[in-house]
């Protein structure tokens, strides 16, 4: 298990080739570092004193070459070191992440996502850095140290002994000093915390302080804490700087001894001048490797502690095996479930499940009901191998669930959780998630783990079938209808023609009925549900210069705005929109839902916050860039949707007038750059739906959207286009955590994801709780007609109106099944179920 790996194991595991290469480079580097000293000596002794210019040039050249070589090699060492370190870090993160994914669910009740992220992202970096440096730094610097020392002994053993004698003293003095520095540092952190608490108290009690005029009292208290902090910080700095000064002192007193002794020796002719200079250089240079070794020791300490802490935090055994020990085909189970005296005990000796017995033949359907917190989900999770029960047994076809590998369970079970999770990606990706996971590990897959061979995956027809069965069809269709067709999709030319044909039929068949809910693209009218840009242009850009996002930068358009007297009103509008949005959403996360009713995009919020923070500046004096942004924001303004600013009659009139002017001006300036709305032309910039409506829906209230959609579905079917639009809808991206889906849509998608696998066992934990009645009965019907007898179903149910047709009903109370039988039996008995049903009706 990765958490049991010692830190040094990563060093051993890192690429041997790279490490050997590293050692070779280090060897050369050390030589290249010592060599210049010898050259230095020769330059003075031979070249200068003998006045030999050629020698001077030769030695200087060699000196330069070796210095260059040493720097070059240093760079190579760093590269090697980094690549070893980064590779180790990558491995560590990956292995730990894979380990974390196998940890018991109970572990995540106590460990937040934040902790996991911090561990994987931050805490391990120190360890990675260490692994990279683990060989390079100590070997390079020790060898360099030894190299210099040896060279010094070679020059003069006496002087070498004298100068190196200082280092043991340093080793003796430094550690205690360092320890004190550390202690004072701890005191400093603690004292800062105390001060923070004090400040926090004052701010929290600010009402009381001001009401009592007690500023001076709080001021005094604050000053007391400040004084403590002052004393501690001073002492800490004294020690910290003391260490530095001591180091420097040794560094600079060394030469003093050398001058004295070396000079005396030189005067007596026992030591030549070149050697003395070389010796001084060597002495000076010896400090660097020494310091690097000291620093490395710190890195090592830091890495060791953080690595150990991180690994310890995740040092938990997985509860289940992922794959069978020996390679074999997955078990095909029939789905008979037998539970005997099942107990699930958690910390504190609490039995969440306490002696559950039940038996389900394959294909039988069980409804699990009971009060909130009675353990229904826990029981479902034990059956689904999400929790490891602590006593008794759960068997499927006579095999103990706890012992089966995860791959077998996943192969045979569809699990819909109480709060299903939807992943970022398309509807289709989410739909196929279970199927893809169940395919063999060695199936061809891309970088994202998605199976690339379509033959292995369900067909589009099959997907549409499941989408229809689970009732998410309408939603997917809506996503499809709300898609703006990509321009390069040439094959969709036919699609476009059909859409225009539908537009005519829609007008004829449904126009009058639905007129109240729609706003058609009419020449003489301001479109409240289209953007201001669309109202001005009243067409879609053929040239990208006229696309809304580029419009504000187009010189032609800006000139037009000024002429139409729209520039200042639009700047003012943009300014107001920015300020209002920042006021309401400024402190909130960039959640797409919050931004639906503002023209601002979530990712723009930060920069607009800065804009607002600058205060009010006359708009005409703003930098050009800001003016462009304000215009862009104003151009997105859609009065039917963005309600934070009033929309004045004046602006409406100006824009309507501008519409005609713009058309005339553009035809003269750049004919054909914009294709104006025409009842018989496809509007590229609008989604399919708006192309069919040739207008926009005024509201997104479900009952209205449903009526519109019903009308359209018939027409789509006539044109044989329904599947095409649905398959476009399957590519809808659901956003992080499925944020762009409603709760009901998420549930339906989760059910579809489980159904897609056609498993012999289905566990549904309040799977339909957020669905409207129609969707719920549709799924209920499907379960009764399609799955009864074919798949064993355990359904936790909150709404008791749907349990009549289940084969068995079990009522749970405080971790026990208090009643079990058919609905009719239990109702006749007038026990717990009866109470639940009637209790629920009395509210």
């Amino acid at each position: 298990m990765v958490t049991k790996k010692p830190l040094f194991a990563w060093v051993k595991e890192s690429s041997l080739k790279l490490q050997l290469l590293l050692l070779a480079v280090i060897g050369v580097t050390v030589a290249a570092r010592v060599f210049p000293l010898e050259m230095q000596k020769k330059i003075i002794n031979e070249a200068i004193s003998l006045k030999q210019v050629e020698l001077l040039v030769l030695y200087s050249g060699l000196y330069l070459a070796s210095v260059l070589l040493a720097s070059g090699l240093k760079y190579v060492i760093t590269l090697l070191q980094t690549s070893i370190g980064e590779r180790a870090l990558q491995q560590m993160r990956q292995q730990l992440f894979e380990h974390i994914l196998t940890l018991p669910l109970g572990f995540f009740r106590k460990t937040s996502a934040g902790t996991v992220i911090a561990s994987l992202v931050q805490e391990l970096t120190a360890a990675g850095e260490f692994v990279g440096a683990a060989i390079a730094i100590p070997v390079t610097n020790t060898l360099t140290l030894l190299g210099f020392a040896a060279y010094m002994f070679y020059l003069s053993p006496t002087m070498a002994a004298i100068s190196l004698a200082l280092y043991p003293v340093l080793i003796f003095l430094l550690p205690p000093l360092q320890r004190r520095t550390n202690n004072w540092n701890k005191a400093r952190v603690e004292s800062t915390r105390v001060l923070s608490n004090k400040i926090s108290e004052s701010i929290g009690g600010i009402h009381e302080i001001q009401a009592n005029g007690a500023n001076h009292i709080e001021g005094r208290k604050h000053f007391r804490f400040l004084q403590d902090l002052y004393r501690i910080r001073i002492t800490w700095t004294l020690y910290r700087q003391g260490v530095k000064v001591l180091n420097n002192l040794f560094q600079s007193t060394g030469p003093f001894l050398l001058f004295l002794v070396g000079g005396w020796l030189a005067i007596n002719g026992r030591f030549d001048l070149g050697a003395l200079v070389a010796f001084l250089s060597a002495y000076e240079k010896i400090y660097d490797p020494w310091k690097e070794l000291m620093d490395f020791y710190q890195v090592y300490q830091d890495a060791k502690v953080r690595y150990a802490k991180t690994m310890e935090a995740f040092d938990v055994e997985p509860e289940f095996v992922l794959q069978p020990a020996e390679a074999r085909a997955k078990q095909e189970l029939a789905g008979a479930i037998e539970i005997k005296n099942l107990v699930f005990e958690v910390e504190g000796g609490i039995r969440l499940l306490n002696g559950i017995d039940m038996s389900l033949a394959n294909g039988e359907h069980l409804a699990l009901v009971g009060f909130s917190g009675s353990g229904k989900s826990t029981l479902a999770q034990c059956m689904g191998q999400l929790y490891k029960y602590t006593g008794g047994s759960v068997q499927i076809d006579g095999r103990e669930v706890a012992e089966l590998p995860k791959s077998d369970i996943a192969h045979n079970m569809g699990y819909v959780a109480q709060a299903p999770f939807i992943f970022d990606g398309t509807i289709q990706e989410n739909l196929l998630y279970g199927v893809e996971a169940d395919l063999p590990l060695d199936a061809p897959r891309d970088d994202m783990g998605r199976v690339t061979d379509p033959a292995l995956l369900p067909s589009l027809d099959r997907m549409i079938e499941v989408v229809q069965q689970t009732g998410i069809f309408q939603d997917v269709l809506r996503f499809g209808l709300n898609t703006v067709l990509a321009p390069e999709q040439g094959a969709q030319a036919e699609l476009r023609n059909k859409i225009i044909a539908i537009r005519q039929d829609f007008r004829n068949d449904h126009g009058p009925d639905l007129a109240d809910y729609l706003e058609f693209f009419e020449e003489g009218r301001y479109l409240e549900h289209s953007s201001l840009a669309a109202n001005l242009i009243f067409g879609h850009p053929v040239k990208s210069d006229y696309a809304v996002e580029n419009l504000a930068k187009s010189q032609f358009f800006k000139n037009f705005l000024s002429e139409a007297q729209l520039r200042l009103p639009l700047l003012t509008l943009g300014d107001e929109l920015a300020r209002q949005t920042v006021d309401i959403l400024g402190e909130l996360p960039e959640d797409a839902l919050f931004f639906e009713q503002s023209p601002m995009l979530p990712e723009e919020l930060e920069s607009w916050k800065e804009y607002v923070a600058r205060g009010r500046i006359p708009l005409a004096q703003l930098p050009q860039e800001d003016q462009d942004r304000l215009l862009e924001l104003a151009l997105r303004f859609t009065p039917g949707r963005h309600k934070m600013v009033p929309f004045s009659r004046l602006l409406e009139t100006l824009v309507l007038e501008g519409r005609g002017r713009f058309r005339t001006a553009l035809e003269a300036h750049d004919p054909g750059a914009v294709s104006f709305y025409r009842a018989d032309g496809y509007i590229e910039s609008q989604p399919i739906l708006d192309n069919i409506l040739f207008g926009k829906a005024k509201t997104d209230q479900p009952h209205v959207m449903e009526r519109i959609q019903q009308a359209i579905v018939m027409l789509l079917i006539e044109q044989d286009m329904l599947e095409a639009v649905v398959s476009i809808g399957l590519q809808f991206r659901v956003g992080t955590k499925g944020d762009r889906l409603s709760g009901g849509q998420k549930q339906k998608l989760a059910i579809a994801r489980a159904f897609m696998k056609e498993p012999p066992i289905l566990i549904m934990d309040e799977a339909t709780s957020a669905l409207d009645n129609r969707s719920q009965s549709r799924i209920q019907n499907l379960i009764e007609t399609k799955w009864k007898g074919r798949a064993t179903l355990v359904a936790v149910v909150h709404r008791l109106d749907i349990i009549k047709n289940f084969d068995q009903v079990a009522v749970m109370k405080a971790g026990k099944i208090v009643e079990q039988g058919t609905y009719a039996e239990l109702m006749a008995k007038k026990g717990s179920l009866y109470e639940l049903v009637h209790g629920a009706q009395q509210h």
Partner: protein
Amino acid sequence: MSSFTAPSSTNDAAEGKSELQQNLDRYRQVWLFSGLALEPLKLLAYLSTRETLKPGEPLFHRGELPTAMAVVLAGTLHAYAAAEAPPAGAREPDASFGPGDCVGGLALLGKETHNYTVVAAEPLSYLTLSREKLQRAMQQYPDIGLKLCEALATRVSQWDRSALDALARQETRLGVSLL
């Protein structure tokens, strides 16, 4: 057709107030939101939309899961303890709601289905806030949940007291789940 351009009260429009500000003014008078600080209330007002119903059109049906709450701006809503509303005028509604009243806020906090069918008795305009948006707002301002619970506890207690009085006068009091 005219009923579909949301009727904004003429005064406010003349003062140049944005719809958001008007919504906020409304919400400050709704008992359910009493006790909310201005920032969360502003967010709720911003997330709400104005919608309309024609006479006879339902706001929701009995047995449906609550998906949104509504605050009446203009018009009247009638509630019937039945799966379908009776034809207009056929019988007295079990409860009715006018401008400023809030319908279905309590339901958003729980998992229970509606006990009443509520329909527009006259052209209705109302402010509506979906469960989804309310929940998302609550995640940002957890205080919202707490304050709504407090407001509800107060209201239920008041309801009970008035029900006791009504009992003494032998009247019936229905519709607490519509709060």
